[in-house]
């Protein structure tokens, strides 16, 4: 979808604006570490504490204790933290010893270092990697400061040459075995050197050496710019950009301050750019990230090169007579005493309002501009401010441009709901009109409308001053809670009034042709309007003629209707009496046969005797068995079984039948011969 011309213009202006901020540092960051950011950070740190006082490990405990101390907040359960720390030193490596020492010394529960600790520190002071050197130097100087270690200055100074050996044109390696440099470790190296410079007395040569290292460092040329923010990154190591940036800044500031040396690369652009990066992470929630944000911002606020000032307009928008409240603070939110001048105030149409004025000072160290009062129409105003201060370290104050939002109340009046049969919006003379007495009250009658009617909603919106007000959201919503349908129409501004036109016939699909009561609502809203509201206008009784049929939407996730199979009905049968009668009729010939046989005096006198008796019995038995087999076939056997049995019976049957019939015919022949 193509962007409209207006939004293209907006983008263009936006781009120009961003470019301007980068090339000059007339303007500092627009946010700072506010008191609510501080509260959130403290809350996050405290919520990370476990029952034993620790914050998940020695390292995180160190981060939490340091961050809370920098934020001037109390470390909760500090005795427990001390007890935990004392017991947590199990592996005697440089990092653990440093964390251990730092926590105990910060919380004031440190004691003289034992031999083991001393041994680790001594070894770390001549290590060949910047991690251990940093830990060793930091731990040694902390202990020395509180007389908890007996360590001559020259032993601490041995670290200088060790650290210097790791550098390559002012950028340091993590260790000599690495073939790449690390910005994060450059930060650590600078911090270590800075701590030495401020913790022990250096000769002029030594000071010069350190100044040369700082002066030659190309560190900041490696910063990448992203939307006006400057970020330092280490590609090779698993360190987040926030940690790298913060570590480098703390290093530069610590060393610079200890030597009271200049570092030209750290210009105004850098001060503001790094502030943007750190402030961009001010919502960080993990203990580690909070530590890096807080430490980084703290040195930015107090560094000796350039300190970015933050000119901010107070959060709550300007309501009527309040005036604009401007705060000038450092990045950590400490108010700064300066002179603030409003050079120009312009409204949405670029018209200048008022003349150049100095801002009055409020008792809470903020500044007040009274030009924008209740007379100003709601909208965005651009405030051009110039901040002047005697302190030359402050940057980002020459020409600060801030947007101010002035909010006001919208007065909605002359609300008329018209029902017309025609879509012609110009002629509503024959339309039925319903006046809604005020925005916020509902019309007492239910308005009956036909599905073919047109609904017009007219109203006016004025500001407090009585001028016409154009607002962003003027929606007329027709809804039916039961069906869950909701149709939004936009009311358009024309000739000083708003009008929404709802063609009810078009909504038939959306409402599934459902007649009944619908709610008509008007929503008036804008970001400049304080009393944005959604108010019912009337109940609409909508009648569709029902010629079109709609089926309600069907959920695809529903249970389907049950199906039970309908079995085929058995065919109707004649009654048992009929079939019994027929059975008797069918049996009658059999009975007749028996009677005839008996009547004619049937006998079996010819039944063979002697040897042939067995043959005849066999013949009759097998014949009977074959006939019975038919019966069994009908009752339980299948064709294959039946044929098997039949084959079995057929052999004796043929044998006996042949013998019996032969015997009978021989006998008959004999009788005939006789």
């Amino acid at each position, binding site marked *: 979808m193509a*962007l409209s011309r207006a939004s293209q213009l907006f983008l263009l202006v936006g781009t120009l604006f961003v470019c301007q901020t980068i090339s000059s540092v007339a303007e500092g960051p627009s946010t700072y570490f506010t008191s609510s950011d501080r509260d959130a950070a403290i809350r996050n740190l405290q919520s990370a504490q476990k029952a034993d006082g620790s914050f998940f490990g020695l390292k995180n405990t160190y981060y939490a204790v340091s961050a809370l101390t920098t934020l001037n907040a109390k470390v909760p359960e500090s005795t427990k933290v001390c007890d935990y720390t004392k017991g947590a030193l199990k592996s005697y490596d440089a990092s653990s010893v440093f964390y251990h020492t730092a926590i105990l010394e910060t919380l004031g529960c440190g004691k003289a270092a034992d031999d083991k600790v001393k041994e680790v520190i001594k070894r770390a002071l001549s290590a060949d990697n910047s991690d251990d050197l940093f830990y060793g130097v930091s731990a040694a100087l902390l202990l020395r400061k509180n007389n908890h270690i007996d360590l001559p200055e020259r032993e601490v100074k041995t670290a200088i040459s060790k650290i210097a050996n790791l550098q390559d044109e002012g950028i340091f390696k993590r260790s000599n075995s690495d073939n790449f440099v690390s910005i994060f470790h450059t930060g650590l190296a600078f911090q270590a050197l800075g701590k030495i410079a401020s913790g022990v007395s250096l000769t002029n040569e030594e000071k010069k050496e350190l100044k040369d290292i700082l002066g030659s460092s190309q560190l900041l040329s490696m910063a990448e710019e992203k939307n006006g923010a400057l970020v330092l990154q280490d590609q090779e190591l698993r360190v987040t950009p926030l940690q790298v940036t913060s570590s480098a800044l703390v290093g530069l500031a610590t060393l610079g301050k200890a030597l009271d040396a200049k570092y030209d690369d750290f210009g105004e652009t850098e001060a503001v750019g790094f502030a943007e990066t750190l402030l961009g992470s001010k919502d960080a929630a993990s203990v580690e990230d909070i530590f890096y944000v807080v430490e980084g911002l703290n040195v930015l606020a107090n560094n000796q090169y350039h300190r970015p000032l933050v000119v901010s307009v107070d959060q709550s928008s300007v309501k009527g007579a309040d005036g604009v409240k401007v705060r000038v603070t450092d990045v950590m939110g400490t108010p700064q005493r300066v002179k603030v001048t409003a050079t120009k105030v312009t409204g949405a149409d670029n018209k200048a309002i008022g003349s150049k004025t100095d801002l009055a000072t409020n008792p809470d160290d903020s500044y007040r501009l009274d030009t924008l009062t209740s007379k100003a129409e709601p909208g965005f105003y651009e405030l051009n401010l110039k901040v002047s201060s005697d302190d030359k370290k402050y940057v980002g104050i020459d020409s600060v441009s801030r947007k101010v939002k002035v909010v006001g109340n919208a007065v909605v009046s002359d609300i008329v709901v018209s029902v017309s049969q025609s879509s012609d919006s110009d002629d509503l003379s024959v339309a039925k009109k319903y006046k809604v007495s005020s925005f916020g009250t509902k019309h007492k009658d239910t308005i009956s409308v036909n599905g073919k009617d047109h609904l017009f909603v007219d109203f006016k919106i004025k500001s407090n001053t009585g001028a016409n007000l154009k607002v962003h959201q003027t929606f007329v919503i027709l809804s039916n809670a039961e069906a869950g349908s909701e149709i939004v129409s936009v009311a358009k501004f024309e000739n000083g009034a708003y009008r929404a036109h709802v063609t009810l016939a078009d909504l038939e699909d959306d409402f599934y042709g459902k007649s009944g009561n619908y709610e008509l609502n008007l929503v008036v809203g804008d970001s400049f309007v304080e009393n944005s509201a959604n108010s019912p206008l009337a109940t609409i009784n909508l009648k569709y003629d029902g010629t079109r049929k709609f089926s309600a939407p069907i959920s695809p996730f529903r249970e389907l209707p049950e199906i039970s199979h309908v079995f085929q009905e058995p065919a109707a049968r004649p009654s048992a009496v009929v079939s019994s009668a027929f059975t008797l009729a069918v049996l009658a010939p059999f009975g007749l046969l028996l009677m005839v046989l008996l009547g004619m005096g049937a006998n079996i006198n010819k039944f063979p005797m002697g040897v042939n008796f067995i043959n005849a019995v066999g013949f009759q038995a097998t014949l009977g068995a074959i006939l019975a087999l038919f019966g069994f076939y009908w009752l339980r056997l299948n064709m294959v079984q039946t044929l098997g049995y039949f084959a079995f019976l057929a052999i004796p049957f043929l044998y006996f039948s042949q013998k019996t019939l032969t015997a009978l015919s021989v006998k008959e022949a004999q009788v005939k011969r006789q």
Partner: protein
Amino acid sequence: GESSLFHDVRKANPKKKMKWTSISLLVLIVSACINAAVQPGGKRVLAVVNGLDIKSSHSIFFKSLEERGYQVEYRVASEKNIPLRRYGEWQYDQLVIFSSTWSLPTQTVLDFVDEGHNVLIATDSHLNQAIRDIASECSVEFDEKDSYVIDHINFDTSDFDGSHSLVVASNPTVIPGIFEKVTSPILFRGVAQDIEEDSQLLFPLLTASTTSYSHHPHESVDELHVAGKKTVLVSALQARNNARIVFSGSIELFSDKFIRSEVSRHGDSKKVASGNEQFAKQVSQWVFQERGILRARDIKHHRAGETEAPSTYTIKDDLEFNVVIEEWNGKTWAPFTAKDVQLEFTRIDPHVRTRLVPDGKGNFSAKFKVPDVYGVFTFKIDYSRKGYSFLNVVERTPVRPFRHNEYERFIPTAYPYYASAFSMIGGLFIFSFIFLYHQEK
């Protein structure tokens, strides 16, 4: 048992090399058995982000993933060679895109999903065409670039200076057991979605309120793309292969800032903790297949009174069907207890559709009479409920008609036929005696 197994292997394979291969093979088999109880989706997550600073700005969300055993790797979206697939093998099980841009081909993501992997996409109002294309492949349409969801009534007061695009949403979709009710309001700032309604695959997880709309904050409103309750903020899609995709129009929804925020809705004097953490966690649990996954096993069917499935059923048999359906609850497979699972017995059309009755221990059973229609029938469970994975069970069995000897044997109506046949047989037998052995006097 394991040590004796190893012992046997050693004895059987005196050569040292062979022994170790076998042992590692055994270890593989043993670990495969243990893995049988692991989560359906995998644990390797690739997070493609706008910038690595998201690791700190969204640390709570990613920490909760890591606490649940995911290994998250981060890549910046602008990188050209994100190694999602290497030599044809997917390197990750889950993909998180927390970015307004995507520089790999759209098809890569679609292939990833087609092969059953899950994707969580959160973007913002500056989304690029590639993200938009991925969404539109899933019937999700993001509103125009630089448009925001705006609500002048339900916005957070911290956005009083802005354009009221920090909206407070309070009606996330509730599906018991999968999406529990989030009582606290949810903060959202980003782009709106318009999704296909009444789809079996796609449903909203979070929608805006009646008074909301989606538009460019600084342009006058002439036409609306989406407005009111139809404005979808977060949507969920479950593909036919049960791969899941969630689209969120806001990356900030998952941020530490929103999670830690106290919501003060304009007009409410009370501040409440935001529900973003709970919502984000539930979304990630669903999309990574920790919730709402169903599986069916031990499908059994037999005639009433028997225990083994016959090779074929006869029409009008009394049939019993049993299946175990389980739900993955994030840790184990637990018995599924829904009462609306249906079984169909289908030949071309379903002839029987009946509820499967659960016993609460995961066993579902149904009893019915086989229809008097013969052919190859299919037992079919096609269970699709919002939020749950699709459960498809298909099992075929033949059904045959009665054999000739299985019909009714003594039909009263047919008695005349029986009588005629048997009287003929009887008559023949008696007549054979008279015919052969009768002697006239």
